[in-house]
């Protein structure tokens, strides 16, 4: 069973915060507004659509989704 996994590219990220807005269940924000999420964090199936939206809407294209 392949799982959707989410990683934030820390170099690309500029703290727009859309990912945390869309996925508060798995993405937090630190005191400087940068997303806190473990690299390769598993996205629960019911959040997959929102995760894709987060990846699409990130102005810096810093949200990386992988399957595996």
């Amino acid at each position, binding site marked *: 069973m392949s799982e959707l996994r989410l*990683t934030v*590219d*820390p*170099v690309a*990220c500029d703290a727009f915060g859309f990912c945390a807005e869309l996925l508060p269940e798995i993405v937090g924000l*630190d005191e*400087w*507004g940068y997303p806190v999420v473990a690299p390769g964090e598993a996205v629960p199936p019911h959040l997959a659509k929102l995760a894709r939206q987060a990846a699409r809407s990130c102005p810096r294209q810093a949200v*990386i989704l992988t399957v595996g």
Partner: protein
Amino acid sequence: MTTATTSAAPRGAATPARLAERRLAPATGHAPAAGSERRDGTTRLLGAWQAHQSARLAEHLAHHGPPVLPPPRACGWADLLARLVADAGLTGRGGAGFPTSAKLAAAARAGERRWLVVDGLEGEPESAKDRVLLQCAPHLVLDGAELVAAALGADRITVCVAADQGATATAVHRAATERERTALAPVPVELARPPARFLAGEESALVNWLRCGTALPTFRPDKAVPLAIGRRTMLVHNAETLAHVALVARHGAKWFRHAGTADAPGTTLVTVSGAVARPGVVEVELGTPIDTIVAAAKPTATVHAVLVGGRGGTWLGTNDMGTPLAPRALRERGAAVGAGILVALPAEACGVAEIARMATAMAAESAGQCGPCVFGLPAIADDLRRLAAAAAPSGPGSRSGIGADPDLGTRLQRRLGAVTGRGACRHPDGVVRMVRSGLAVFADDVARHGTGRPCTAATPVAGPARDAATRWQT
């Protein structure tokens, strides 16, 4: 043990007898077998040469014998070399301590074309071992580089020396020119001069600089994927690691294991600085107790703590100073050998002021790419400076100590947790390790500052008294 630094005065010729007299024994087991060891265990890399003297090719060959190179059109040397290095148990000497054989095997599997990079940058201000090695024994490093390049089919070798290390670059250039005229140069050797910045020697930053001239680490979601430029797989090895490879190829894995301990074989270069009369680079067997190495550098005061592994390393207090310089023993204390940096802190210095000063310098060395590092490290450094300043001399009624900033302790702890593991490289993780270990080792100093009592060292980091904080450093 031999001392050779860029700052130390040249010493008399290091005769084997003198060196044997001063050699350091490992803490546990594995004394070199009598008779089987031709050279002293601690003089493998630097022993024959004096500081400020660069071995010429003829001298180098007379001392070490001819280098090992695969015969033309030989097959299977990549596997052969990886196996030999695995038997020797050689690990990288650049800081991460990764098994060299695994790195060689991974590069042998990846792609068709390869490019070998010799990392001699050592961005750590407290490290001098790679530049001393490249200055004194450039041919030994080039022997190793040429062997690895020829065995793996690399068609380029680039030796990287920081832009501000002119003498080292001169020595490498002269050595490479000397070899060009002989059969020893199977692969062209070129010299590159990346900027002298803390992070420029980080593997991905170095490759990025060679690719596009920007010495910044890159984000690698999967570190198992080898670095590449175009169609060339990049192999980055530390200069000292390659010198060890050259000796393992000459003398064998068993010989390499005559020094060091069973799980940490061989010797390693260590840079000792801080409150010592003889700062410099020494070659020691892995497993030598840290206090023994520091004692040999003649401390100028009672040593209160030792920073192991540099500014991204770990502070060890008085109780742990006898720890052997070996991966396993250090891991149990949350430390690592790193690039072999030992900084001795004297009892009269303030640990809080020192970690604040180092954290401030490390925040300034951030590559400026990842938010948690860009904002987190200055915030951590600022908290530490506040803590250090809390016990600055103050008049009655002035607000100082925890009373002035009651959240300081919890805020600092939260921030230390917030930046760990969140950068493209390990820079923030190293700072956190150094600060956390410092807060534990200097708990007395922290408590004194926390209650606003005067610090024994009375050295607020920012401001004119800064010199007092660094006076002990030579």
